């Protein structure tokens, strides 16, 4: 929490007492005509406004403020108007008090006062006062002073927001339209346009006519009316007009060239917003004219680059974000300008990051060497986030390029820097690189092999190193021993990603170098099974780790080393480097249609968060493949021996289950620990069922058909373990089942726990009948 230091400054008083004080003083001044009254009023008004600014509620002095408002001092009036505008909405009754003097001021001789009063009148935002608004507004639109007309034309849209019917019934939109097309003052015209755009867009949802009017704003006469006098408007109105023109579709190419010729000097405007609006318009206009579109790119390059360097860092960020979009769309066109994307020493990180992305995008055969050289300078930078981003950029370039020779060397040199964050980022990249270009493994592994896993702390980097240890176990002399020592520290490892990688890498290493890894594998699997924190990849049940010490069984398995290798290496994954590239292509798709898309609007970052979950699913997918092969062979043998005796299915007992119960794994775990076993028995499963078990999903599906849901499953043939749950249809009472299926004996061990123990027998019948019918369909 940020304490808002209300009392920190002497000019900012703190509390209620002061407000009461001010109220009294205002009351004394209200009727006074003594000389100097206005000065005292000014001081008091100022005090009130300063309270208002810092968020103290000063609505209680409303009537006093209004009483004091009878003055000819315009500064006082303005302060009063500001106050009234802020509080009228919350004091509709008191707001009525102000109507009188505001209406009077609307008829003042001084156009400035007329304008101010009208503006304030429109700012009251009190629905039941709109009747007092229509008259002055109508007069204001016809006022001879352009200042008053300016105020009135915006006033119309204010009225529309307070009461749309009043605004439409008074025919204000039509008057505005006339004013827009005929007024002499450019700002009045611009304000009419703003108001009409807003009113008709809102109105278009309900009224046909309004949507026609909205279309009419984009008709050729109106567009040309604005274009021909564009220089009369101030720079801000120009932006809005350019924006509007970009929605206009010219009927032929000549017109497009006319418009662009007319507006070309807008590209030399000092205001970046005007330049960008012009660029957007040019790009929109030429979307269907490929060669002209390209020329537009060439034409806008220089003005954009000038805008990048002529304003504040914030403005430069806005321009760069646009440039970024363009570069992503057409990297080729910017590949010669790469030096403009080099980072300056003193730029804020958000600017540097954009530049790095652009450097990555424009890298091609001719400039890669220089770009990577530059990036390597940043990587040695003391600024850690910058160094990280730079290394990632080098990695991305490597993944895009065909000739990665030099880049790989550079990446590997990063490891010599011996800075922890550099090493960490580099490891992750080397891993990604090897997934795409396995041919570089020899060079990389030689260097990576020298890195001590003890120096790597970041989970991502650690996971990458472990992956390489598993993948290249045959080339890394001490891989099994490094893995073994990592397994020993299993408990100290917090990251699920690292643990997952450790498991798979030990398995992979085992297939390559079984004798050296056997012990580590046993330990890893034991640790993994016992791992209480990771329900997603292992059994959740702590009590039952005993029977599932697979280590010995696996150790005895006579799996051919060659076969194992094919299994493991078939898992070469492209997903990861696609993720890396995805962010670029996704941005490309967003195009230019929306100014906002360059500014990390909320629905923007999906691509990055995907990565970890994909990695996990890749890893998980490794596991089911192992059992599937062996269980298939065993079921074939079963069939050959003709052991398939069908088990008579028992008639379905009368227990109604909820078809779609919901339970999350954590609650399941909790419940499983809380409840005691209410029923423990053996069930049989048909040989066809056992055969069908080669696909675990099919059983889960089958059970679902009987309103029994699976929450966790796994295991190796012949032992499979499942956790199911079900819920009674009428009440929240749950049944939890642990089911261990031995596929060689066609038997299943059931442990049932139930909220309502009395019905557990009935449930067990349902369960057994469901299980016995598995594979029979």
């Amino acid at each position: 929490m940020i304490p808002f230091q209300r009392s920190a400054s002497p000019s900012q008083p703190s509390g209620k007492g002061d407000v009461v004080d001010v109220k009294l003083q205002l009351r004394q001044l209200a009727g006074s005509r003594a000389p100097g009254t206005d000065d005292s009023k000014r001081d008091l008004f100022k005090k009130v406004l300063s309270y208002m600014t810092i968020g103290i509620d000063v609505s209680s002095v409303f009537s006093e403020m209004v009483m004091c408002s009878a003055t000819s001092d315009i500064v006082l009036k303005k302060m009063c108007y500001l106050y009234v505008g802020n509080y009228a909405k919350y004091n509709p009754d008191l707001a009525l008090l102000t109507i009188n003097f505001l209406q009077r001021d609307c008829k003042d001789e001084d156009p400035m006062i007329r304008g101010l009063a009208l503006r304030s009148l429109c700012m009251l935002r009190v629905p039941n006062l709109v009747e007092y608004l229509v008259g002055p507004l109508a007069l204001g639109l016809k006022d001879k002073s352009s200042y008053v007309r300016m105020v009135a034309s915006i006033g119309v849209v204010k009225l529309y927001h307070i009461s749309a019917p009043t605004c439409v019934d008074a025919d204000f939109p039509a008057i505005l339209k006339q004013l827009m097309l005929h007024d002499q003052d450019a700002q009045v015209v611009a304000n009419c346009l703003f108001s009409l755009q807003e009113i008709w867009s809102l109105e278009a949802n309900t009224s046909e006519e309004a949507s026609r009017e909205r279309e009419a704003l984009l008709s050729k006469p109106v567009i040309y009316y604005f274009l021909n006098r564009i220089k009369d408007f101030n720079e801000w109105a120009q932006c809005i007009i350019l924006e509007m023109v970009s929605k206009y579709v010219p009927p032929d190419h000549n017109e497009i060239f006319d418009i662009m010729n007319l507006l070309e000097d807008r590209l030399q405007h000092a205001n970046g917003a005007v330049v960008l609006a012009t660029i957007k318009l040019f790009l929109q206009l030429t979307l269907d004219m490929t060669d002209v579109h390209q020329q537009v790119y060439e034409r806008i390059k220089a003005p954009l680059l000038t805008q990048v360097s002529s304003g504040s860092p914030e403005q430069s960020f806005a321009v760069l974000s646009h440039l970024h979009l363009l570069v992503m769309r057409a990297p080729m066109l910017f590949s010669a300008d790469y030096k403009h994307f080099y980072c300056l020493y003193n730029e804020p990180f958000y600017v540097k990051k954009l530049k790095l992305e652009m450097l990555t995008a424009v890298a091609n055969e001719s400039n890669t060497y220089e770009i990577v050289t530059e990036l390597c300078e940043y990587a040695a930078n003391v600024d850690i986030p910058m160094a990280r981003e730079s290394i990632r950029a080098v990695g991305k370039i490597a993944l895009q390029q065909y000739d990665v020779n030099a880049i790989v060397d550079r990446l590997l040199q990063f490891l010599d820097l011996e800075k922890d964050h550099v090493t960490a980022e580099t490891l992750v990249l080397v891993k990604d690189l090897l997934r795409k270009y396995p041919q570089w493994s020899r060079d990389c592994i030689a260097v990576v092999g020298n890195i001590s896993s003890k120096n790597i702390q970041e989970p991502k980097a650690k996971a990458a190193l472990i992956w390489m240890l598993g993948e290249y176990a045959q080339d890394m002399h001490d891989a099994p021993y490094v893995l073994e020592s990592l397994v020993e520290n299993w408990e100290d490892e917090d990251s699920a990603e690292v643990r997952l990688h450790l498991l798979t890498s030990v398995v992979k290493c085992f297939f390559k170098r079984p004798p050296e890894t056997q012990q580590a594998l046993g330990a890893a699997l034991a640790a993994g099974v016992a791992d209480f924190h990771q329900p997603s990849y292992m059994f959740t049940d702590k009590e039952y780790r005993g029977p599932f010490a697979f280590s010995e069984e696996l150790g005895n398995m006579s799996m051919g080393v060659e076969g194992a290798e094919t299994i493991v290496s078939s898992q070469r994954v492209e997903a990861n480097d696609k993720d890396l590239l995805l962010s670029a292509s996704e941005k490309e798709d967003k195009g230019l249609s929306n100014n906002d898309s360059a500014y990390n609007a909320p629905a923007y970052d999906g691509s990055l968060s995907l990565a970890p979950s994909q990695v996990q699913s890749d890893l998980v997918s490794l596991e089911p493949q192992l059992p599937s092969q062996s269980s298939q062979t065993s079921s074939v043998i079963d069939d050959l021996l003709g052991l398939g005796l069908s088990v008579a299915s028992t008639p379905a007992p009368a227990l109604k289950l909820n078809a779609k119960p919901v339970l999350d794994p954590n609650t399941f775990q909790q419940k499983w620990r809380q409840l005691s076993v209410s029923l423990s028995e053996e069930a049989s499963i048909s040989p066809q069922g056992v055969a069908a078990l080669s696909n675990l999903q099919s059983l889960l599906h089958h059970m679902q058909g009987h309103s029994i849901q699976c929450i966790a499953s796994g295991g190796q043939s012949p032992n499979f373990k499942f956790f199911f749950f079900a819920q009674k249809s009428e009440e929240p009472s749950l049944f939890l089942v642990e089911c261990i299926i031995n596929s060689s004996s066609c038997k299943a061990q059931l442990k049932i726990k139930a909220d309502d123990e009395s019905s557990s027998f009935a449930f067990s019948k349902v369960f057994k009948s469901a299980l016995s019918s598995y594979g029979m369909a």
Partner: protein
Amino acid sequence: MISQFFVLSQRGDNIVFRDYRGDVQKGSAEIFFRKVKFWKEDGEEEAPPVFNVDGVNYFHVKVVGLLFAATTRSNVSPSLVLELLQRIARVTKDYLGILNEDSLRKNFVLVYELLDEVIDFGYVQTTSTEVLKASVFNEPILIDAGRLPTLGPASIFMQGTKRMPGTAVTKSVVANEPGGRKREEIFVDIIEKISVTFSSSGYILTSEIDGTIQMKSYLTGNPEIRLALNEDLSIGRGGRSIYDYGGSSGAGAVILDDCNFHESVHLDSFEVDRTMSLVPPDGEFPVMNYRITQEFKPPFRVNTLIEEAGSLKAEVILKIRAEFASSITANAIAVQMPLPAYTSRVSFELEPGAVGQTTDFRESNKRLEWNLKKIVGGSEHTLRAKLTFSQESHGNITKEAGPVSMTFTIPMYNASKLQVKYLQIAKKSKTYNPYRWVRYVTQANSYVARI
């Protein structure tokens, strides 16, 4: 259209807060400040100028340590809003003379008045000081100009050189002078920010000049002004053939990559004789921005030598040579260099008789800092720093240190050779002879020497 505008102090309290449309909640300033203060997304530590929280777009720019911010729910062009925020700061500065927290707090009623005229219901009405003068009635309460950092590049004229009247840039456009009569004067500043990157062998890798011709007019009656630049000035590198180099245009030709102009500038004869005519509006504004990547002689050469002296010691020798005329003096030179992370102690040795030089070793970020009050053209300065390491350095120290970066200001020097040949003011009478100040200054934007 924008919904709210506010200015927050560094501590996060509202200095001004104006709600234009009432469609964003009142607590937005607090939400905004918290987000900016504790920005931690994407590993970044600094909030970008535009972000979105719960459907509200927040825009901000930092000016003299204050946050100028705007909110909106609509999809408005971000560059428009950022440009606008910057412009509001400039207009405010025109009025107050000096823009800082103190002057804003003292004049917040005036600022409200300005804001009322600048934006109506979220739509920008005008940001021209000239136009605003007609409808803004508060008198600015001026604050003491002494030793206060000011806004804008022109503020550099306050340091050093006595030739410049120090009050000029901090003078309010509207306030009356204490003496009663306004002084008729006009300032034209040619401000160039240079970015140079030297490779470790001293070769220039990249160089760029970002220049602005800035004008601030205190002339009454808005006379027309003609401004003439170098006649051999050419714009755009793209269309030129390579034979143009060193050809008829002469070796000293100034080639701008690109430039843009303020809307008040008329360029009717610019193509012919490189003159611009304009009626300067009140207040400070850029007449022209330009960008040059043509090679130029960098004002300083930096030489860095690192010598290992045993396993726990090394010596850094920094040499700076000023390669400009001896009639010119650079001010406020700061040299920085990151040292290896395991540096524990540094002892400095300045050249004998060094005046106005300070050195420092910033323990927290392991940085060497060397500040020089001034450097006269043609001179050379050396710093020796003896480093002591807390652990043995493994491998190459040069990979662990650097790059060397410099900041400086050189008045009456411009790297590009772009010049204002003359500044003509349309005369109203024979006796009318206002003061004209044409001032040049070059500043380092990013001046980096790799080692």
